[in-house]
C-alpha cells in the first residue's frame, strides 16, 4: 500500500500537468450535474444530499411554527387563541414532522452528503436509490404536512393509538389514513437509505481503510442504518394491520372481536424507541468528528465509541415497553424493560466521557461548533438524567404522559440532536458551500437557542409533576402552572429567534465574500480533502488510507490526492466509477460503475407515491393503475440501469492495480443490497408473526374453539410448491453459472409458474375454509400472513420472469449473473417466510 508514487507516476506520467488537466476535464464532465430542467434528474450525492437536507430543515421550520402556535395558546390559562381541533392537529403534526420528516431524514441526508467524502468514495453505491428515497420523502412529506391547510390533518398524537384512530366514529375523515399511508411511504424511503448506507460503509471504503481505521462517523452510520433496518419494519407491519382495520374493518385492535389495542403500542414502540437512538446517534457522530478537530488530537478511546455505538444499537431494542409502563402489564415484564432502560445509559455515558477525555488530553480551540457541542452536552445530560429517572417504573407512573415527559424528550432530542446538528451545520457548511458561516451570528444564535431552550423547557418538568398532562389545548388557572407556562412560551420564542439567526446566516446573500481556505478547521479526516468550492467528483483520486486521520498523519496527503497519485485519477471511458473494497481490511475488489443522472427514480417515486395517495382516498381503480405503472417504472429502471455488462472484464485503476468491472454473488454490492433489504423484509414479516403469537398469548384459546383455520391440506400443498419454486431458483442460478443456459432458462420459466401456483394454493386454504377476516382477529391474522407470503411468491415469480428476459436479451450470461444470483438469494428469504408462515398457520394450531 505504500510507495504509491513510483509506479503510477511512471506509467501514467501523473506528474505531467497536461495529463492531469485532461483527467480533470474528463472527471468534471462525467460527474457534472445536468443543466436546466434536467438538473432534477441528478443522482449524485452532492446534489441529492443537499436537496434532502434542505427539505428536512424546511419541514423542521414548519413543525417549529406549529410549536410556536401551541406555545402561544398555552401561554396563559384558559386561552382560546386557537380551536382545540386545530391544536390537536398542530401537536400531532409537530411530533410527526419532527420525528419522521426531520430527525430521521436529516440523518440520511447528512450521511448521503458526508459518507462518500469521509470514505474518499466518488459516490455511494446506489445513487439512484438515494434519489428515489429523496423523491419519496418529498412526496410523502408534502402530502402529510399539506393536510393541515385543508383541516384534514391527523389529530391524535404522533403515536396514533387505536381505537381512537382506527374507529371512524372517533376520527372521521382521512387524517389517520394520511398519516399512515404518507409515513409508510417515507418509511420505505428510510429503508432504502439504510440499505445504501450499510453497503456504502462496508464496501465503499477507500483501499487500506481497515475496520480499525474507519472514521467514527462511519461506525455510527453503520450502526444506525442497521437499527433502521430492524426498527422500521415492525412499524410497517403495524401500519399494514392498522390500515386493514381502518379500511376493511379487520379487527386487529378491536377488543369486541378478539383484537387488542395494545398490540399497536408494541409494534409502534418496537420502532419508536430505537427511533430515539436512530436520531441521537448520528448527531453524536457529528460530535465525534468535531471534538477531535478542535481538541487537535485523535479521539481518545476509539474502541470505546465503537462499543458505545454498537451497545446502544442493541440495547435500544429492549426499551420499548418503557413507553407503556401505565398499560397495566405485569410488574415483572416492566422490570425487564426498566433494567434495559437503565443499562442503555451506560454506553451513553461512555460516549460523553470519551469526548471529555479527548478534550482533557488535547489542546482545545474554542469555536462556534464547539460552543454548540458544549450546549448539546449541557442539555443532553439533563435529558439523560431525567431519562434515568423515568426509566424507573414507579416514577414514570407519575411522570408518564405529562409535561415532565415533554421536557425530558425535548432535552434529549434538542440537546442530543438539534444542538449537535447545529454544531454540524457550522462545522460542515464550508464543505457544502465553500464558505464559513459567520462566527458572530453563530454565537448570537447559540446563546439565543441555549437560553431560550432552557427557559422554555426547564419549567415544564415542574408543570408536569404539578399535574399538567401532555396534549391538552388548555388548562385551568387553578392548576397553578400558569406562570410556568408563560415562562415556557417566552423561552420558546427566544429559542425560535436563535434558529432564525442560523437560517439568516445560511441564506444571507454572500456577495463577493471569498471562499474559505482548504480544510478550514485543520481537521484530519478525509472529508476535508474537498476543495473550496467543492467539485462534484468528490476526491481527485481515491487515496490509500493508512491511518485514522490521514490529513494529519500521512505526509503530503492532500498533495498526493490532488495530483492524482492514487487510484482512479481519470475517467478514460467517461463513466462514473468508484472502488469497492473488502469489509475487514479494505482490500480493493472491484471498480464499480455507478449510474449517472436519470429521471427514472423520480418517475418511480411519483407512481409509488400515487399508489399510497390514491389508497388514502379509496380510489381503487386509480390505485391499481398506479401500482402497475410503479412496477413497470421500477422494472425499466432496473433493466436499463443495473447489472450492466461492461465492455471489458477489468481495468487499470492506477498504481499498477487491475480490478474487475463486474462481480456477482456475495462480492457484488447488489447482492449485499438484496440481503440487507430482505433482512428488513423478514423483520416486517416477523412483526406480523409477532401479532399472531401475541393474540395466541393473550387469549386462553387461540385459534378460538370451533373456528376453522386455513386447514392443513392447502398450506401443505403450497409449502411443497414453494419448495419446488425455491429449488428452481437455486437450480437456475447453478446451471446458468455452469454454462447450461438452456436448462437455466427452462428452470426460470418453470419456477415463475410454480411460484404463482404456490401463492394461489396458499391463498386457497383460508378461502376454501371460508375464513372471514372481519369476523374475528384470528381469521384476520391468518389472512394477513397468507397474503404477505403469497405476495412474496408473486414478486418472486416476477423476478424469475425478469431473469429469464434478461437471459434471453443477452443481458445476463453465465459470467455475468448478478440478476439470477440476487433472485436466488431472494428466494432463500421467501423459503424462510414460507416455513414460518405455514408452520404458524397450519401446524401450530394442530399441535396446541
Amino acid at each position, binding site marked *: 500500500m505504500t510507495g504509491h508514487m513510483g509506479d503510477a507516476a511512471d506509467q501514467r506520467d501523473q506528474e505531467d500537468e497536461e495529463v492531469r488537466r485532461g483527467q480533470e476535464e474528463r472527471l468534471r464532465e462525467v460527474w457534472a450535474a445536468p443543466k436546466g430542467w434536467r438538473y432534477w434528474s441528478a443522482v449524485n450525492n452532492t446534489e441529492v444530499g443537499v436537496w434532502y437536507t434542505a427539505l428536512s430543515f424546511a419541514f423542521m421550520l414548519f413543525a417549529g411554527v406549529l410549536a410556536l402556535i401551541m406555545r402561544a395558546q398555552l401561554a396563559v390559562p384558559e386561552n382560546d387563541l386557537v380551536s382545540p381541533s386545530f391544536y390537536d392537529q398542530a401537536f400531532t403534526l409537530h411530533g410527526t414532522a419532527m420525528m419522521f420528516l426531520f430527525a430521521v431524514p436529516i440523518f440520511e441526508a447528512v450521511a448521503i452528503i458526508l459518507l462518500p467524502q469521509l470514505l474518499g468514495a466518488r459516490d455511494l453505491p446506489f445513487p439512484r436509490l438515494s434519489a428515489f428515497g429523496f423523491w419519496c420523502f418529498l412526496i410523502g412529506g408534502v402530502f402529510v404536512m399539506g393536510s393541515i391547510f385543508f383541516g384534514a390533518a391527523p389529530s391524535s398524537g404522533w403515536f396514533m393509538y387505536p381505537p381512537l384512530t382506527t374507529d371512524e366514529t372517533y376520527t372521521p375523515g382521512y387524517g389517520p389514513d394520511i398519516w399512515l399511508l404518507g409515513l409508510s411511504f417515507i418509511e420505505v424511503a428510510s429503508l432504502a437509505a439504510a440499505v445504501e448506507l450499510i453497503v456504502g460503509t462496508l464496501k465503499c471504503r477507500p483501499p487500506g481503510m481497515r475496520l*480499525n481505521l474507519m472514521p467514527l462517523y462511519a461506525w455510527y452510520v453503520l450502526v444506525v442504518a442497521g437499527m433502521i433496518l430492524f426498527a422500521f419494519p415492525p412499524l410497517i407491519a403495524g401500519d399494514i394491520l392498522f390500515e386493514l382495520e381502518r379500511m376493511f374493518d379487520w379487527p386487529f385492535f378491536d377488543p369486541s372481536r378478539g383484537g387488542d389495542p395494545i398490540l399497536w403500542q408494541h409494534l409502534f414502540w418496537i420502532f419508536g424507541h430505537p427511533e430515539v437512538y436512530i436520531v441521537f446517534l448520528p448527531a453524536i457522530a457529528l460530535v465525534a468528528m468535531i471534538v477531535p478537530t478542535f481538541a487537535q488530537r*485523535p479521539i481518545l478511546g476509539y474502541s470505546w465509541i465503537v462499543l458505545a455505538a454498537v451497545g446502544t444499537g442493541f440495547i435500544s431494542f429492549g426499551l420499548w415497553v418503557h413507553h407503556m409502563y401505565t398499560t397495566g402489564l405485569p410488574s415483572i415484564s416492566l422490570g425487564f424493560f426498566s433494567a434495559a432502560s437503565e443499562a442503555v445509559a451506560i454506553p451513553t455515558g461512555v460516549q460523553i466521557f470519551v469526548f471529555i477525555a479527548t478534550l482533557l488530553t488535547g489542546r482545545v480551540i474554542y469555536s462556534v461548533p464547539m460552543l454548540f457541542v458544549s450546549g448539546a452536552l449541557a442539555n443532553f445530560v439533563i435529558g439523560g438524567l431525567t431519562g434515568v429517572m423515568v426509566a424507573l417504573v414507579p416514577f414514570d407512573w407519575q411522570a408518564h404522559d405529562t409535561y415532565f415527559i415533554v421536557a425530558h424528550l425535548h432535552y434529549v432530542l434538542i440537546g442530543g440532536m438539534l444542538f449537535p446538528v447545529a454544531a454540524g451545520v457550522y462545522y460542515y457548511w464550508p464543505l457544502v458551500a465553500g464558505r464559513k458561516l459567520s462566527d458572530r451570528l453563530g454565537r448570537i444564535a447559540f446563546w439565543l437557542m441555549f437560553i431560550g431552550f432552557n427557559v422554555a423547557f426547564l419549567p415544564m418538568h415542574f408543570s408536569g409533576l404539578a399535574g399538567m398532562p401532555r396534549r391538552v389545548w388548555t388548562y385551568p388557572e387553578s392548576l397553578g402552572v400558569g406562570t410556568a407556562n408563560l415562562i415556557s412560551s417566552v423561552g420558546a420564542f427566544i429559542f425560535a429567534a436563535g434558529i432564525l439567526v442560523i437560517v439568516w446566516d445560511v441564506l444571507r446573500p454572500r456577495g463577493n465574500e471569498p471562499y474559505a481556505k482548504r480544510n478550514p478547521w485543520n481537521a484530519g479526516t478525509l472529508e476535508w480533502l474537498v476543495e473550496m468550492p467543492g467539485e462534484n467528483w468528490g476526491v481527485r483520486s481515491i487515496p490509500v488510507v493508512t491511518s485514522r486521520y490521514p490529513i494529519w498523519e500521512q505526509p503530503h496527503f492532500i498533495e498526493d490526492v490532488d495530483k492524482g497519485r492514487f487510484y482512479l485519477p481519470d475517467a478514460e471511458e467517461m463513466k462514473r466509477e468508484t472502488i469497492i473494497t473488502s469489509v475487514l481490511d479494505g482490500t480493493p475488489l472491484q471498480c464499480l460503475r455507478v449510474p449517472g443522472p436519470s429521471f427514472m427514480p423520480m418517475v418511480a417515486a411519483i407512481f409509488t407515491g400515487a399508489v399510497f395517495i390514491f389508497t388514502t382516498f379509496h380510489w381503487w381503480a386509480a390505485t391499481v393503475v398506479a401500482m402497475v405503472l410503479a412496477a413497470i417504472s421500477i422494472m425499466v429502471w432496473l433493466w436499463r440501469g443495473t447489472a450492466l455488462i461492461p465492455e471489458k472484464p477489468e481495468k487499470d485503476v492506477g498504481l499498477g492495480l487491475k480490478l474487475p468491472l463486474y462481480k456477482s454473488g456475495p462480492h457484488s454490492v447488489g447482492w449485499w443490497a438484496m440481503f440487507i433489504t430482505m433482512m428488513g423484509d423478514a423483520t416486517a414479516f416477523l412483526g406480523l408473526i409477532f401479532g399472531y403469537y401475541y393474540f395466541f398469548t393473550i387469549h386462553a384459546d387461540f385459534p378460538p374453539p370451533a373456528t376453522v383455520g386455513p386447514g392443513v391440506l392447502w398450506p401443505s400443498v403450497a409449502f411443497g410448491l414453494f419448495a419446488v419454486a425455491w429449488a428452481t431458483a437455486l437450480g437456475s442460478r447453478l446451471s446458468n453459472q455452469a454454462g447450461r443456459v438452456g436448462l437455466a432458462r427452462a428452470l426460470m420459466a418453470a419456477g415463475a409458474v410454480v411460484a404463482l401456483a404456490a401463492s394461489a394454493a396458499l391463498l386457497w386454504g383460508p378461502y376454501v375454509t371460508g375464513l372471514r377476516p372481519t369476523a374475528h382477529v384470528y381469521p384476520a391474522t391468518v389472512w394477513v400472513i397468507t397474503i404477505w407470503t403469497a405476495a412474496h411468491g408473486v414478486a418472486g415469480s416476477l423476478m424469475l420472469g425478469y431473469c429469464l428476459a434478461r437471459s434471453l436479451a443477452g443481458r445476463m450470461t453465465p459470467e455475468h449473473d448478478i440478476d439470477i444470483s440476487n433472485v436466488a438469494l431472494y428466494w432463500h428469504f421467501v423459503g424462510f417466510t414460507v416455513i414460518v408462515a405455514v408452520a404458524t398457520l397450519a401446524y401450530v394450531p394442530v399441535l396446541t
Partner: protein
Amino acid sequence: MQVFGKTQDNLWTLIAAPTIWGFHFLFSYFLAAYRCAPNADIFKDIGGTRVAIAGVTIVCLLLILLILRRAWREWRAEGGGYQNAKDTPEARERFLEFSTLLLALLSLAAVLFETMPIFVFWDCR
C-alpha cells in the same frame, strides 16, 4: 471460529455478546409475558418461570464469559494496550478484540441488570 487459541475476529464475533444479551432479554420477556399475559390470578407464585429465567441467565452469562475470556486472552497475548490505530491486520485484530471485550463487559452488566426483576417479583401483579 475457534474458542481457544488464535482466532480471527470480524463484525459477527464483535456482536456475539450483545446478541446473547438480546436472546436473554427476549427469552425473559416472552416467557414472563406468556406466563402472566392472561392477567388472571395475579398474586399466584410464578416460581417456575423465575427458575427457568435464572437457568437461561446462567447459560448466557457463561457464554458471555467465554467470549470475554477469548477476547481478553488474545488481546493480552499481544500486550494489550489501547493503541490500535496502525495500518496492519494485527492492529485491526487488536481493535476488534478490545471492542469485543468491552461489548462483552457491557453485555455482562446488561444481562445482570436484566436478571434483577426475577429476584424482586414473585408473581404477576
